[in-house]
């Protein structure tokens, strides 16, 4: 489904991502973990086209998408959410999701129709599924933080992606919100048959839903495998216990 | 084309360049560090010119007192700049560029009319310092001593400010601020005071430049709007925020304009704007600047 081969990126001599490869099967849920500064965000930005890798390839469902601009990669079926919430703050919640639908369905070049009623049912159904139907007409920027994160997921889902990249989907959330978001993610991934790739600092979350874990450390891939295997990997334990103990 | 003609154009180009450098250096400092594009910089320059005229008229109606007047212009405009920054501009940091642009444009309107109200619309002229009257015969043309003075003073100020920026700790902090305002706050530096100081210094340069130009051109309403676009061109060519870039930008501008008149008299005006556009297209950070981020 998503094939990452030998990605490398340097910033002014500093190697942020160093020869990282990762293969993700369809409908697999994969977590990328690592201490702060391990290169997780850069890794994501390389995959989604926000940064161009120095070397390496990203193959999405048989298409080589390396170095394509983000909008092209998005249209090929990759959705993403960002570490810092990334919504359209001055639009209403409904309009946020609707914008995603309009863009995905190629109506953006329509100059003449009225957009207000377009795909309204679909947008509302989508809001229903992420639990935001009650606040459909609220200006998105005024939502509580957790709800903004949920909305961001909604926007990403509007482009009907097959692969979803989530950068710290529960960052800054309370324990309750985290639990809710994770259940939501699991349910949606199940319903839509999504392939998920996410970064996360909360190990409880990671070990709860990930089917495979890749550990980054100082730009390199330290380990990769099923949770049970990674958990006992001595190198991972050294890095992590050294960090958190 | 004779040698004397080329020399004459060279001298006039250099004089223009160094004037613009004096003006644009302040504009560039403020943009480079505060990320504010100050349309009112030209107005500060105009106010400086009027103050110079006023002081000369008070002290020595028959001429003289030029140096005192120049200093008074610099200081007067510096105070004006400080007041503007403390009372108003600081509230707009972190806002959209549009609001900052329009704020400084509001100052252009207000200062322009205030100057008209106080000094009228007549052309006023100021006599240069007697020490620098006369000129140097060089390559078949005459280079007035005053122009020569400007050509020397321009680079002198450049080196002075350049050294201050690169050596002093305040200068280092200011450069850090250009890259990341928050980072600077985290370092514990008093960003607010630093910005005020920056704006005051920039205003001082504008006021001084306004005073120094009075022996060459007469003081009239509208000189503010005319000069600010030229200063924009200079800082864009050199690189917004790059001090040495501004110096070379001014050189390129001054020489393009003076020699452009020889080659395409109709289009020398056009050529400098085209130069600005080309630079923005090819290297938005300027010929001598570095891309930020």
């Amino acid at each position: 489904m998503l094939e990452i081969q030998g990605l490398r990126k340097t910033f002014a001599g500093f190697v942020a991502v160093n020869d990282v490869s990762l293969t993700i099967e369809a409908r697999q849920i994969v977590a990328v973990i690592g201490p702060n500064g391990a290169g997780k965000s850069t890794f994501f930005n390389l995959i989604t086209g926000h940064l161009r890798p120095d070397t390496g390839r990203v193959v999405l469902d048989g298409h080589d998408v390396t170095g394509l601009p983000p909008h092209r990669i998005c249209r090929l079926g990759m959705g993403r959410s960002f570490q810092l919430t990334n919504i359209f703050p001055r639009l209403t919640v409904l309009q946020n999701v609707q914008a995603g639908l309009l863009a995905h369905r190629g109506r953006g070049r329509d100059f003449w129709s009225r957009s207000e009623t377009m795909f309204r049912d679909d947008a509302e159904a989508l809001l229903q599924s992420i639990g935001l139907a009650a606040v459909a007409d609220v200006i998105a920027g005024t939502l509580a933080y957790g709800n903004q994160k949920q909305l961001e997921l909604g926007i990403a889902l509007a482009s009907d992606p097959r692969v979803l990249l989530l950068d710290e989907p529960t960052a800054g959330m309370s324990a309750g919100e985290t639990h809710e978001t994770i259940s939501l993610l699991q349910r949606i991934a199940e319903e839509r048959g999504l392939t998920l790739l996410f970064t996360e600092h909360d190990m409880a979350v990671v070990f709860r839903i990930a089917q495979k874990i890749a550990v980054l450390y100082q730009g390199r891939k330290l380990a990769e495998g099923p949770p049970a295997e990674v958990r006992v990997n001595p190198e991972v334990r050294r890095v992590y216990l050294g960090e958190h103990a | 084309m004779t040698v004397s003609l080329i020399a004459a154009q060279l001298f006039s180009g250099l004089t223009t360049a160094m004037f613009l450098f004096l003006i644009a250096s302040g504009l560039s400092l403020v943009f480079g560090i505060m990320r504010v594009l100050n349309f009112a910089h030209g107005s500060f320059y105009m106010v400086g010119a009027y103050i110079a005229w006023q002081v000369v008229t008070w002290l020595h109606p028959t001429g003289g007192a030029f140096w005192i007047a120049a200093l008074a212009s610099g200081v007067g405009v510096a105070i004006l700049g400080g007041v503007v920054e403390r009372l108003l501009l600081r509230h707009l940091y972190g806002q959209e560029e549009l609001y900052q642009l329009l704020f400084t444009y509001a100052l252009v309107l207000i200062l322009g009319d205030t100057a008209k109200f106080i000094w009228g619309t007549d052309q006023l002229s100021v006599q240069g310092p007697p020490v620098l009257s006369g000129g140097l015969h060089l390559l078949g043309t005459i280079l007035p001593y005053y122009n020569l003075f400007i050509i020397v003073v321009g680079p002198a100020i450049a080196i002075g400010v350049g050294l201050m920026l690169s050596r002093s700790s305040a200068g280092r902090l200011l450069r850090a601020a250009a890259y990341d305002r928050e980072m600077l706050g985290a370092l514990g530096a008093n960003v607010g005071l630093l910005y005020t100081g920056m704006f005051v210094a920039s205003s001082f340069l504008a006021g001084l430049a306004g005073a120094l130009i009075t022996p060459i051109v007469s003081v009239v309403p509208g000189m503010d709007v005319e000069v600010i676009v030229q200063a924009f061109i200079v800082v864009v060519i050199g690189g917004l925020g790059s001090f040495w870039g501004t110096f070379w930008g001014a050189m390129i501008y001054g020489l393009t304009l003076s020699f452009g008149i020889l080659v395409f008299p109709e289009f020398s005006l056009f050529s400098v704007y085209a130069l600005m556009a080309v630079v923005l297209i090819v290297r938005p950070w300027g010929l001598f600047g570095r891309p930020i981020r």
Partner: protein
Amino acid sequence: MSMPITNSLARPAVPAIRRVPWTLLIFLLLAPLAWIGSRYSIFLVTEITIDALFAISLNLLLGTTGLVSFGHVAYFGVGAYVCGILMKTYGVSFAIAFPAAGLGAALAALVFGYFCVRLTKIYFAMLTLAFSQIIWAICFKWNAVTGGDQGIADVPFPDMQWMDSIPGISGLSANARFYLLALTLVAVAIAVIGMITRSPFGRMLTAIRDNRERAAFIGLNVRAYELAVFVVAGGFAGLSGALYGIFTRGVFPDYVFWPKSAEVMIMAILGGMGFFWGPAVGALVLVWLNQEITNYTEYWPFVLGTMLLVLLFALPGGVLGGLAGLYGTLRRRMGRRDA
């Protein structure tokens, strides 16, 4: 944060206030002025009408897409010069010169915009300014075509004889007829801009305004959209410029000089960039105040500058933003009393 109590299904699909055909209403309200208005009021409203189109076209960039163009006057100027030159120098009829002005301006916007949308923020603003000054320099110096600093004087009125066939118009003066013509053309143009704003394309523009990065990641080619709206806005600015040149019976380099870009920005922000009709309200207030104040004092720029300061610090949402805020406060008070 308050949760709306109404069920989403009970909401009307389009709020009532947005279903009102405002353009038509305003047109019907203003048209009778041609018959009952004084020479002065017709003059004033003609200018407001034309400026309103100019300011609304700018707001497609400023308020809708979040692009700070400091050179919108370039396209206004291109439209004015194209129409003026065609009508005065070549004797072309208005029916051809007017659309040609729009197309010419749109073409200029396409060429310049291609480069501008590659930049963001202050660099975008600077490049738009540079291009508008290039146009100004050309108009100022190209004597053979643009008349140089003298401009093009005596641009003729369009042929408005044909209007005699419309009942009620035969008695009207040329000024009143031009007013009706301009009002009609501007109304149609504004209606079209309104449609574009409400269209899916317009929704994409607001998404780009709110968040460029996210917009790219719902699959939008952000630069292409920005270029498209730059061209559209330029074209409509050109149409308003063409009308303005005829209205003032001449086209001069000052029409392309950068302070006019600032002026139209002030109109937009004065009325309220966040509202479709905001810039039109701004044009109304600005032109009317200008006329009133210049009767008393020559220091109009001072008044304008002071007004701008007050706006920036006290009323950043503009006149309409202030009114909307007031309405919201009132409604909340009323609501509390009801409850």
